[in-house]
């Protein structure tokens, strides 16, 4: 079975800093894959390069059998790969429903149909009572849901989620985990950047670990959590040995 998203040898340099180095990864149709790593590892830059926000210096990104390397973001989104932002970017002056409707307009020009879809998706994501409120009035958890709703309204085949759990309390995390399960079961594939191992372990079937711009490990979540290279990337050199002796 061919991958929905295939990234090969992706590199991105900012001046003297090689932020992303030769990253290769895959997401299968309907799969849920996590990209983890310490702060500054290059996760968000990888996302930006995959989704067309920055042009990679080397490597290939192919999505649904099409080479989309260097494509502009809107074209990539139209093809079905849509990202969310770690720092949420609501259209603050619009209502929640209007925010989601912007996404729905990708596939319909009819304002009524777009609004209908927006309300349905907003309701699914637990935003029913906020639909007519200004997006600026939402809490952090609400904004994360709105990011998700807006992206879903474009009817994506692959969602790139940049830390949708960050800043949420444990019960909110549980709710988002459940929501993501529903989303994936409807056939949407997910590539998520996530710090929260609890969420990664609950959702992802495959995990890639990035450190200092390069992939250092990959595999199922349980194996990744025991990988000495991963432990050292998070806790520092020699940490794995220290923990083993303790």
């Amino acid at each position, binding site marked *: 079975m061919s991958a929905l998203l295939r990234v090969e040898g992706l590199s991105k340099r900012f001046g003297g800093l090689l932020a992303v180095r030769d990253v290769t990864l895959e997401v299968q149709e309907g799969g849920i894959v996590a990209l983890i790593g310490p702060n500054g590892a290059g996760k968000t830059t990888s996302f930006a390069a995959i989704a067309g926000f920055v042009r990679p210096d080397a490597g290939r990104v192919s999505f649904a059998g099409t080479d989309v390397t260097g494509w502009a*973001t809107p074209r990539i989104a139209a093809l079905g790969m849509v990202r969310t932002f770690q720092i949420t970017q609501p259209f603050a002056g619009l209502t929640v429903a209007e925010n989601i409707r*912007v996404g729905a307009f990708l596939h319909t020009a009819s*304002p009524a149909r777009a609004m209908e879809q927006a309300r349905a998706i907003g309701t699914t994501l637990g935003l029913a009572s906020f639909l007519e409120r200004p997006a600026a009035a939402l809490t952090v958890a609400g904004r994360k849901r709105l990011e998700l709703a807006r992206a879903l309204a474009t009817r994506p085949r692959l969602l790139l989620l940049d830390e949708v759990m960050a800043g949420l309390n444990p019960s909110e995390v549980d709710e988002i985990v459940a929501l993501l399960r529903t989303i994936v079961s409807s056939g949407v594939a997910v590539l998520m950047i996530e710090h929260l191992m609890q969420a990664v372990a609950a959702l992802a079937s495959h995990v890639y670990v990035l450190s200092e711009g390069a992939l250092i490990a990959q595999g199922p979540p349980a194996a990744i959590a025991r990988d000495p290279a991963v432990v050292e990337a998070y806790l520092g050199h020699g940490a794995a040995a220290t923990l083993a002796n303790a």
Partner: protein
Amino acid sequence: MISRIVAIALAALALVPFALPSQSLVSLAFLAVVAALLGTGWNIAGGFGGLTSFGHAIFFGVGAYATALLQARHGLSPWLGLPVGAMLGGLIGWLIGVAAFRAGLRGSYFALVTLAFAEAFRVIANSLDYTGGGLGILIPLRPGLSSFQFADRRTSYALALALLAVALAVSAWLRRSRFGARLAAVRESEDAARALGIEPLHVKAAALALSGAITATGGVLYTQTYLYIDPTIAFGPERSVEMLLVAMVGGAGTVLGPLLGALVLQGITEGSRALSTTPGVAPMLYGLVLLAVVGLLPGGIVRLLRGRAA
């Protein structure tokens, strides 16, 4: 709701000339409606799109000169001025938009560039023989329907009102259409818009084109009413400022804002003139009232109406 308010407002304005006893009062009402038309044009880019332009006189002037040149230089019917002026306004808006937005200009940098373009147009109009140089263009007086000149101000007023109705209809369409939603999205966050499949450059350039076309119709109407245009009237900074004031005082990014702003500002102008004939006092009063309005109603007068209309 909003279209009903607009319809009522337009119907009320349509009755104004019959209630006014003199042609000079009708002239004032005409100026207010033209100001509303220009402000509504500005508002499409500056309000709905957040593309604050300080040089919208470009489009007013292009419309004004288009109709003047068609008659004075080419002997063509002035009725061509309306479509030609609107098309040129749209084209120039689109070109300036593509150039400025491709260069990544926004906010005050975009405002300055539009100001510079308006000044460039003024200098060009000032120096070409074709445009009559600094003397401008005088259109021979030939009242009649075929020459698009009306002895009765009421006819000009009716025409201005019709153009305003079109401009307001476009604004109302922006509030509910896909294009309007995309324009608002781009105004609020270009990155988020891009992630949802919207190309901000296209949306912004199209908005500036639409705004330019509507503003240009105001210029055409101005020339056909006063039968004279010169570089400063057409492209001067006062013209640009008037448009953005009308929209901002009334409520930028709302359908009714520019109309309200035009009525109130025209009222303040005439009121301050009536209160004092001493030179300099009227502009001071105007400035004070303006300060009060902007200070007390930062969202514009339209906020007083509350509810969905805002």
